[in-house]
């Protein structure tokens, strides 16, 4: 027979342990949350491209190459010397569409603002020469507004703006360095259509937000 005292002691220990674990998890989650600034979520992400700054700028100004690169997911239309209008679709499918306005702020700086889209967003990109012979650092800052509920839903749907930013940087790097994006989604396999659909969901989780 366990005495009442032992029961209380065990319950107490379990409570203390649960609270401790909960606090640890909360602290860990907070460390992985994006920064907050005046009602905006803010993240900074960067990637290194193995090309000199001028070659990276050249990629954006070579219209035919850019159109080929963006073909699947965005169109660009020039408004005036420094402003562009961009219409982008969700590259993973799902039919989401954004309209954004891009402004060239200087020789190595660009900013954008989403004018129509599911999430209010703005951001800027800066090109910085990387140390030694490592090419160019593309440094991006992204700000978005979204309620906590929407953000939670956005996360589960894989459309978190931070993940999308990291995906975009990886895509840009690959397009500049190799002229293409590798995709293994339609490689042959011995799977049934249902197994293939389940595997595609796994592929999406292994792809979203990943960096080399």
């Amino acid at each position: 027979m366990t005495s009442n005292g032992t029961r209380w002691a065990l319950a107490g220990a379990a409570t203390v342990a649960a609270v401790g674990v909960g606090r640890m998890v909360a602290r860990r989650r907070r460390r992985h949350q994006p920064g907050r600034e005046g009602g905006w979520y803010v993240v900074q992400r960067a990637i290194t491209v193995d090309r000199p700054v001028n070659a990276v700028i050249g990629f954006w100004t070579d219209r035919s190459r850019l159109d080929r690169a963006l073909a699947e997911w965005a169109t660009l239309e020039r408004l005036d010397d420094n402003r562009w209008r961009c219409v982008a679709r969700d590259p993973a499918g799902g039919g989401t569409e954004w309209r954004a306005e891009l402004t060239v702020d200087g020789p190595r700086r660009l900013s954008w603002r989403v004018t129509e889209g599911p999430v209010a967003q703005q951001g800027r990109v800066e090109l910085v020469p990387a140390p030694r012979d490592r090419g160019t650092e593309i440094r991006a800052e992204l700000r978005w507004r979204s309620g906590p509920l929407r953000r939670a839903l956005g996360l589960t749907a894989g459309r978190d703006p931070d993940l999308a930013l990291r995906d975009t940087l990886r895509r840009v790097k690959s397009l500049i360095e190799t002229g293409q994006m590798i995709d293994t989604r339609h490689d042959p396999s011995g799977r049934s259509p249902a197994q293939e659909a389940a595997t595609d969901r796994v592929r999406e989780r292994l792809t979203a937000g990943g960096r080399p």
Partner: protein
Amino acid sequence: MKALCWEGVRKLAVRDVPEPRIRAEGDIIVRVRASSVCGSDLHLINGYLPAMREGDILGHEFMGEVVETGPGVRRLKAGDRVVVGSVVACGGCWYCRTEQYSLCDNSNPQPVLTEKLWGHAPAGILGYSHAAGGYAGSHAEYIRVPFGDVGAFRVPDGVPDDSVVFASDALPTGWMAADFCGLKGGEVVAVWGAGGVGQMAARAAQILGAERVIVIDRLPERLGTAAARFGVETINYAETDVLEALRELTAGRGPDACIEAVGMESHDVGPVHAYDTAKQAARLTTDRPAPVRQAIMACRKGGTVSIVGVYGGLVDKFPLGAAMNKALVLRMGQMHAQRYIPMLLDRVAAGEIDPGYLATHPMSLQDGARGYEIFEKKQDGCLRTVLHPQPA
């Protein structure tokens, strides 16, 4: 087309699957003529490396004939007989530019898992699970090879399929292991593992200047083959204490360089091996690193330990103190196929290395599951099973 698919832990079957198609500018389609099994496949088949999905096509060490090329392919054309490096490399990133192809930035389209596990995602590998990109493998009649200009190499005429197939993986892996040792001539090199990679590493060490090579394994027939072919010395660890033997064979110094060509499902004798096996079976640890521990303990002070056996995650009882206090150099990695293959093809064509003898068990693709069983259980003196997807 027919392909050998993974159906679950220790379950393989030949299935009808769709043929691959060109999907990007740099792709080529290769009609596979010879596709070897590899020790590292066993880790996938047995469920020790994560991210296999039912229906995945295995195989990453192969050669064949180009049947179709993407619009961006310049170096190759239909009809070329080629060998393809297992590691996919884009040719355009900093790692490719500096010939560290297995670290390519752009060839793993699914980098999340390895980024979490290892901090960064290395290159994709054909037929090597969804952690390495989710590419379909070569145990099939046809395979799509991305960045064909970078990864596929024309094969010299006259070298048989079953010999040149090992220029895809076993030979460059063994060569890189010896290359890592930084040999200057006259060294003593010990090699753990007398499988395909270990034997190629032993030969490469000789070519690169080692005066003596000592090969360690537990299978007398494999040790016998290595001794007969290359004149290496051998130690059977099932019968002899390896550390004692190496110390005596080198008059107390220890080998100048130690190559580990075994990997995460290594064998050993004694209670520590039983403990490691139990822990790994219960998934409390991912890797059994017995030969790495031995190599570090055996290596001479200030020597080099070169690891090309595949490890996936965490190990315990790693003798870091020995490595630190003996000032060892540790080198390791998946092989940089594209750096070594052209040079190795020249050496194979010149007869300097002939890896063809590794293909002890040529078989049809249909017999793939049995081929892996014979290979894993080392039955019938099997060094490598090589599958032939095309009718003879």
